[in-house]
């Protein structure tokens, strides 16, 4: 798992996974993809580093991803509640005619799924004592 070949390949592939994740997350309203897929790709980029370079390289994100997770949840819930006040229904599209609603929710969902899956793996590896 920790051979130089695997480590170098992971370092080379990981930025492209991040790029693909950002692309899918921000272009979800035009192309196949979306928040979930983009977030999972972002998490896969970080997980490659976690698996090949050890938990220490990613562990400093531990506090941040808890906040990302909560931030994503709060923004999604806030957008839904704002729909009640401005449109009349929960999760109402407040800006008709523009893709702002799609882009915003996609980015929020991508951030949340990225944080969630990364947190899941960091904590699960922590339980097992993987170093």
């Amino acid at each position, binding site marked *: 798992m920790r051979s130089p070949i695997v480590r170098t390949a992971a370092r080379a592939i990981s930025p492209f996974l991040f790029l693909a994740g950002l692309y899918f997350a921000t272009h*979800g*309203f*035009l*192309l*196949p993809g*979306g928040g*979930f897929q983009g977030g999972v790709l972002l998490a896969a980029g970080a997980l490659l580093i976690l698996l090949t370079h050890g*938990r*220490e390289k990613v*562990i400093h994100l531990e506090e941040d991803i*808890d906040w990302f*997770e909560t931030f*994503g*949840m709060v923004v*999604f819930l806030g957008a*839904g509640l704002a729909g009640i006040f401005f449109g009349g229904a*929960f*999760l109402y*599209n407040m800006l*008709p*005619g*523009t*893709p*702002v*609603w*799609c882009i915003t*929710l*996609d980015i929020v*969902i991508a951030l*949340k*799924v990225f944080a*969630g899956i990364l*947190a*899941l793996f960091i*904590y*699960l590896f*922590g*339980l097992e*004592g993987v*170093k």
Partner: protein
Amino acid sequence: MGMDKSWKRFFTLACVLIIIVLIATGLGLDHEDKEDSPVQGFLEENYEEMGADNLVESVLLDLRAYDTFGEVIILYIAIAGVIILGKEMKKANYEKEEVEGKDEGGDDG
């Protein structure tokens, strides 16, 4: 703990029966276009308002936004459970090491 042979036969028979019933139900559904379907109304009225070229995405975030919201909540709750478990077990390990007086391990964090 092996299963009884008659039970195995019973379960196989039950599975085959369920599969037959499901296939028959699928064949029995009518595939006619429904004028009063909510998707039809969405396509005619709200699809343009979303401003998204991707039909799937606009359905996912407008017509089925509750579904997406539920997915997000499920993920949140699952991860909250894992984080709580992780912190508790880390604390328990730390206390155990303190009691035993070990110095090795537990340096992450």
